[in-house]
């Protein structure tokens, strides 16, 4: 069972919900929490667990070998991303533009552009009781999040059986990193806040998950600020509202310190119970 927690707008509570939900669920069963916001991974600030494994993650990029090159220009012509450029007697490679398609390398008649690994980030795996926590972190200056997200999915799929509940803390937005994070999941929880920005970005997120053909529900965070437009929109569109996390200064303060909420704030635990009930219903649907 794969559940992604996503939002169009940043800062609406993805990490708060992911960490609290995963930690709460792990009180009764094994849970895998994965932070796929590889540009700014924050879940680890709220989870204290022991490191069990870490590995560097690489993407493959071409490296030019001068000796054999006949400067035929094929590599430059076949690269759609302008990552390989011929300058006079030299072939220049721009690794940050390379998508790793191998076209230049494999179509080179003289084998002068072998693919070599370049570090793009690091994956770390932590454990605390029933909670498995995996975080991937993009190197600063590395522009593409998608390859690292893809490899993180592969790590999870290779290390945990299908039945285990997996929660994915996704990147914000609606572009390629979100698609990569969400596309293979069974259910998406969209978290938003009841403000005009929240509503506008929720609509974009809804369009995105609909396009992907995903089942989804909405959680409203900071409920009580702003206005009723988000509730009205969800009701009108027939989108289930799974929970409403109240606007509460205690929550903001605990969050600011990197603390989980449900352990001390009963209103948050009550809302998590509603989400858990929904997940249990989905699980029955998936297995039957």
């Amino acid at each position, binding site marked *: 069972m794969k559940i992604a927690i996503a939002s*169009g*707008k*940043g*800062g*609406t509570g993805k*990490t708060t919900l992911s960490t609290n939900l995963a930690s709460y669920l792990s009180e009764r069963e094994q849970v895998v929490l994965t932070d796929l*916001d590889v*540009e*700014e991974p*924050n879940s680890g*600030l*709220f989870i204290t667990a022991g490191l069990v494994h870490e590995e560097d993650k690489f993407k493959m990029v071409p490296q030019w070998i001068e000796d054999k090159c006949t400067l035929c220009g094929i590599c430059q012509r*076949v690269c*759609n*991303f302008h990552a390989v450029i011929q300058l006079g007697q030299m072939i220049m490679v721009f690794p940050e533009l390379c*998508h*790793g*398609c*191998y*076209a230049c390398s*494999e*179509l080179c008649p003289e084998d002068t552009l072998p693919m070599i690994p370049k570090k793009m980030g690091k994956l770390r795996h932590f454990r605390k009781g029933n909670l498995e926590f995996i975080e991937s972190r*993009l190197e*600063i*200056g*590395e*522009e*593409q*999040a998608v390859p690292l997200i893809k490899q993180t999915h592969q790590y999870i799929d290779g290390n945990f059986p299908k039945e285990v509940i997996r929660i994915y803390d996704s*990147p*914000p*937005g*609606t*572009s*390629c*990193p*979100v*698609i990569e994070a969400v*596309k293979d999941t069974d259910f998406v929880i969209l978290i938003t806040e009841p*403000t*005009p*920005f929240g509503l*506008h*970005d929720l609509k*974009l997120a809804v*369009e*995105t998950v609909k*396009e*992907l053909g995903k089942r989804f529900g909405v959680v409203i965070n900071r409920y009580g*600020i*702003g*206005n009723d437009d988000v509730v009205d929109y969800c009701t009108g569109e027939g989108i289930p509202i799974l929970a409403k996390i109240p606007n509460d200064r205690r929550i*903001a*303060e605990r*969050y*600011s*310190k*990197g603390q989980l909420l449900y352990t001390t704030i009963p209103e948050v635990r009550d809302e998590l119970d509603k989400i858990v009930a929904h997940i249990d219903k989905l699980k029955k649907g998936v297995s039957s």
Partner: protein
Amino acid sequence: MKEIVVISGKGGTGKTSLTASFAYLGGKDVIVADCDVDAADMHMLLEPDFEKAEDFYSGEVAFVIQEDCIRCGKCKDVCRFDAIPIINNQYVVDPLNCEGCGYCARVCPTRAIENNSLKAGQWFVSNIKTGSIMVHARLSIGADNSGKLVAKVKNEAKSLAQKEEKDYVIVDGSPGVGCPVVSSLSGAAFVVLVTEPTVSGLHDLKRVFELVHKFNIKAGCIINKSDINTGVTAEIESFLRKENIVHLCNLPYDESFTKAMTNGQTIVEYDNNHLAEIISDTWEKVKEIVQ
């Protein structure tokens, strides 16, 4: 003309509300570029008229012409992105996985694969209520190449500013440290970092500053909601001193941010109080720095 870029690393710190306030204070002197093309929100505060709209094409996606396909499977073999699954005995491109590298088309012996250009979004030039102009955009759902759309929006804003002899371009950037952020930073005279005193806010500030530092751009910082956690605020302040980042101001937690937004207003219009005063002093400070 000076370019000022507002970013935050972490989302939801108040970046757009503050950028819109600066745009309001700067009035006719400022051209606004909303470069958060993934989740562009500034139009809700600045009343754009969408005077000019243009489609934005970037990147390609492969398409298999089934009549010409001899099912040799070479395309599938070379594709590194698992974008050519076999469905009902046919090789079909999955556009979500296709990176548009064109490798498959190059190895197809019967030229049965064509590359179609992708509509990656739309961009607009609008007159806004400040008496000036805003360039903004909307990325197509799930589109790649948001960095290129960011560059487009920024370059349009810059050439308008030059043509109209405006003093400033203010850029609202996206969260994160990836390609759209990198794209919004190039050419900036000054970066305003908006953060909040939470463990995530500080963590993300450090990462995004590392990126700004690589570009060698002078930076200043606004600590929003500074009274939520005075301990972390103090930590952020010492980080700013250590890294030589100008501490622009602290803004207390205030629900006028949300209330102004709900009214479709910038904070400086909504509230002629303490917050408005701090923000307007900060804008003066920023102008002084970039002179």
